């Protein structure tokens, strides 16, 4: 079996400035494929959100009175067709991506900040405060959020972007708080924190310099998750009409498509683009999150590119040695090529990969 040889350490000498860039590129290349594709896909949408409204060919609200433009399928003038009132779908989409992303990112920042504050406070204050804060987050986790959101939003006097942001942030923090609390409790007991305390650092400094920086990856994952939640929920809320319906977001686009019977009229170009945009943004975020997960837990990594030795893509050892299924024999050319690779030093036919290779495991 293949016991992956340790990766040769990078040259320890400090590289000059251009070298740093090379190193960065190397880091990027070593990121899991999922994280990379997620980041690229998300970047595409962020770009569309930034420049979209500027490059939109028409005013998204402009109702073209020409009767021929009612529910016109996509053509050169209207790349994604028109709505029933002659509005340009592409312009609505470009404007809508910005509004939806803007909302989701703000909610992500606010809710993650709340989660960090609550989680760290619960872990550090301990005792009754911890019990209380944990109870509150657990209660909010178990109460289904959408009906509560609907109730809150419906009672608010105006249903604009701000109202949605406030309500979504107010209900989006419990999960993160729970995870961050657990992590803070774990870090708090480590020696380096005890050492800083012994040197007389203030609690605030310990929190800001020792604890929170050690949770960055967790906070990042939580941020991505919250953005995902904000996109899905805000679109669903707008879809049932709980949004400012005169503004263009992906959710309000879907609301109008549904309420104007786009489906029954066969106008797929009206409801597919916004829905697909939501789904793709969500996919990008899920990919990004899985990538972050895999960085922390290499065992989850896609097996096909985990071991790439001697130019040949090799499957890493099965999770447990499967002795009754030897690898298929190589072709003549294949075994000749293989004799040059480092892994040929280990006879993989015999299955001597014992004890099991355990990548990235803590003792």
């Amino acid at each position, binding site marked *: 079996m293949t016991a992956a040889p340790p990766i040769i350490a990078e040259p320890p000498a400090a590289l000059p400035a251009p070298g740093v860039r090379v190193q960065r590129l190397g880091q990027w290349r070593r990121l899991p494929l999922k994280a990379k*594709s997620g980041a690229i896909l998300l970047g595409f949408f962020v770009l569309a959100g930034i420049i979209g409204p500027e490059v939109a060919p028409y005013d998204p609200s402009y109702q073209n009175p020409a009767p021929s433009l009612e529910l016109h399928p996509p053509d050169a003038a209207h790349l994604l067709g028109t709505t029933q009132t002659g509005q340009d779908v592409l312009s609505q989409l470009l404007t809508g991506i910005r509004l939806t992303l803007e909302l989701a990112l703000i909610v992500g920042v606010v809710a993650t900040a709340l989660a960090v504050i609550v989680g760290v406070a619960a872990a550090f204050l301990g005792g009754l405060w911890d019990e209380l804060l944990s109870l509150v987050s657990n209660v909010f986790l*178990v109460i*289904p959020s959408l009906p509560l959101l609907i109730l809150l939003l419906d009672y608010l006097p105006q249903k604009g972007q701000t109202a949605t942001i406030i309500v979504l942030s107010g209900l989006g923090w419990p999960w993160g708080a729970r995870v961050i609390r657990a992590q803070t409790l774990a870090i708090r007991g480590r020696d380096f924190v005890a050492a800083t305390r012994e040197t007389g650092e203030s609690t605030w400094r310990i929190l800001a310099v020792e604890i929170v920086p050690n949770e960055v990856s967790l906070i990042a994952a939580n941020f991505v998750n919250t953005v995902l939640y904000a996109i899905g929920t805000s679109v669903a809320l707008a879809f049932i*009409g709980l949004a400012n319906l005169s503004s263009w977001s992906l959710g309000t686009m879907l609301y109008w498509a549904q309420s104007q019977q786009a*489906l029954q009229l066969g106008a797929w170009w009206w409801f597919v683009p916004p829905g697909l945009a939501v*789904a793709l943004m969500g*996919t990008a975020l899920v990919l990004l999150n*899985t990538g972050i997960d895999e960085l922390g837990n290499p065992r989850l990594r896609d097996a096909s590119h985990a071991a790439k030795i001697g130019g040949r893509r090799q*499957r890493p050892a099965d999770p447990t040695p499967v002795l009754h299924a030897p690898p298929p024999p190589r072709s003549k050319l294949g075994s000749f090529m293989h004799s040059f690779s480092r892994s040929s030093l280990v006879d993989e036919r015999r299955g001597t990969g014992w004890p099991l290779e355990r990548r990235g495991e803590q003792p």
Partner: protein
Amino acid sequence: MKFILRRLAFYFVAAWAALTLNFFIPRAVPGNAVQAIMAKFPDLQPSAYRALEAMLGVGHPGSLWHQYWAYLDDVFHLNFGTDLIEYPAQVSTLLAQTLPWTLILVGTATVIAFFLGTGLGIVSGWRHGGWLDRWLPGLMFLQAMPYFFLALILIEVLAIRLHLFPIAQGYAGGLIPGWHWAFIGSAVYHALLPALTIVITSVAGWMLQMRNVMITTIGEDYVVAAQAKGLPTRRVVFTYAARNALLPQLQGFGLALGFVVSGALVMEIVFSYPGIGLLLLSAVSSNDYPLMQAIFLVITFAVLLANLIVDLLLVAFDPRVRAREAA
């Protein structure tokens, strides 16, 4: 027993929190329900104000404390007041009509999705890097898709283009709901597409979680030991690895349920399915506050109950919980 009692206490607190939120939200927001209705129907005379107050139960006499107790008493007796829009109808009657539809549809579909997803997760976790893993990005795409959007697509393709399924509604028009085969058959036929939507969108989440826990579990010493003993693969996979990997999955079930229910509510709107989601939509679009609040309570309680059942299952499956109790 101790574990169950502690969980019961927790759900009691959660239920109380939901009830209290439900009581205070209308009172904390500027402009109460009565004013909203008055604004919505400008031809109402100002004298209608008191009548509306009485009807909504906002004008309960006495202090806030007193109102709170009256409210708890009402909820306890399943008395959610009178509906505003379908005026003489009681809110509880409307709920009783729609709740079974949602419970059966969402319940069945969620259980199917759970078992299917967990099974696929076991396979793809065991055969890590195999052909199932190659479908992961596609599954993530399905997971990230809003329920209602998938519902729109499925209707477009399967119902409108291919005429395989009915487009909407819970049963064929003209049938009288009742316990006879024509109606039941029609109801099942109409439930297939909505159920498919729920299964497709939620199966990926279960599968991904199970796969990740499976991969971690397989690396544990006891699984290696089982393999070394020469136990058959089937036994190692199911009795040693999957059984233990299932526990986090079960624990996640309760939390995921709220998400599934929320998605299913919106999905029902697309299908005009006669469940509680459609009722919620009509309540929202007509500012029917008593109905909205009652729906919130009912959904919350249903989710809490499902969580309690999951906890009981956890006691049955996880010897550590029982051991902790014995200690």
